[in-house]
């Protein structure tokens, strides 16, 4: 009888121990996921700044590219446009640095993919723009794609009025 009781207790302890071990073994992958998310957040912040540098450098080209794109997206207006390939907006947001085209840019880290998109949210022609810069970033091919949005309200003031 004593053996039966002890074997029962030992079995119960074994079940408790294995469930404890299983809980513990799941915490390490969670930590790695946290690390991956922090790395993605910090990298996206830097990439948004680079994208913002381009907008600050070429606000007029962005403005023209967007308006051309609006007309291009309208099937009626498109017929009157010169068919550029690639379109001005695709050129504007197609730089290698904005589209994961430079292998060493983020080494020693690696990402599966990232892309940059510019959107004109509102505007007052040539004087004020509200721009959204969106970075889509995926660290590994099994990770979710994280989207990071940066909205900028930009006023244009002539340097030499």
């Amino acid at each position: 009888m004593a053996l039966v009781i002890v074997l029962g207790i030992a079995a119960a302890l074994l079940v408790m121990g294995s469930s404890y071990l299983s809980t513990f073994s799941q915490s390490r992958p969670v930590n790695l996921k946290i690390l991956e998310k922090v790395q993605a957040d910090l990298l996206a912040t830097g990439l948004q700044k680079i994208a913002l540098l381009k907008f600050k450098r070429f606000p007029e080209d962005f403005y023209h590219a967007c308006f051309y794109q609006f007309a291009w997206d309208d099937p009626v207006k498109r017929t009157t446009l010169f068919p550029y390939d690639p379109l001005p907006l695709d050129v504007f947001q197609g730089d290698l640095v904005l589209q994961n085209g430079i292998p060493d840019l983020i080494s020693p880290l690696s990402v599966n993919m990232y892309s940059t998109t510019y959107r004109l949210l509102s505007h007052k022609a040539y004087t004020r723009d509200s721009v959204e810069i969106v970075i889509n970033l995926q660290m590994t091919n099994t990770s979710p794609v994280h989207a990071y949005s940066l909205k900028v309200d930009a006023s244009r003031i002539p340097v030499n009025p």
Partner: protein
Amino acid sequence: MNSRNGTTLIEIVMAFLILVIAVLSISGLISFGHRGTQKDFRMVQAIQLMEDTMNRFLVASCSQLLAAVPGTTPVTFTDKLLDIPLGPVKVGANDFTVNVTLARQAVSFSTRELDIVSSPPEYNKNDPATWRFSGPTDRNGKFDGVALPYRVVKIHVVVSWTELLHNIRRQVDAVSFAVDFTP
């Protein structure tokens, strides 16, 4: 021969032995789990330290960061830089080492510029149908230290520590960019 119901000494000894083996196994398991929890805790601390250090660099003056890297070769800093603590850092009871590597990063931007010269005579700034663009060019967008000064600094933060039990060196790292927006 008399037969009595009850527990023999052999049964008690066997039961005791099984109980001891089970308890020892479980205590070993709990100890292993505790060590693992401490290890994970150190990693979380390291991630927080790395994030904090990177955020400090991202809000620092980029022109000062550019000045800290005079050439094109990446420079690794192991001592305090711009009041940001680097080198040995103690968090709670755990010791970490924080290093940062800064490098000037060349970037090149291309656009299609509006080409008013080759636009038709009826050019109207409000009508895209009258617009003509140039071919893709990076003429005014090469921040490579030659055409235009560097504006981007690549920041690589590494936080490392030693796992005392197995004397294994571990590290976490992150990469980001600081940009000089001054006109």
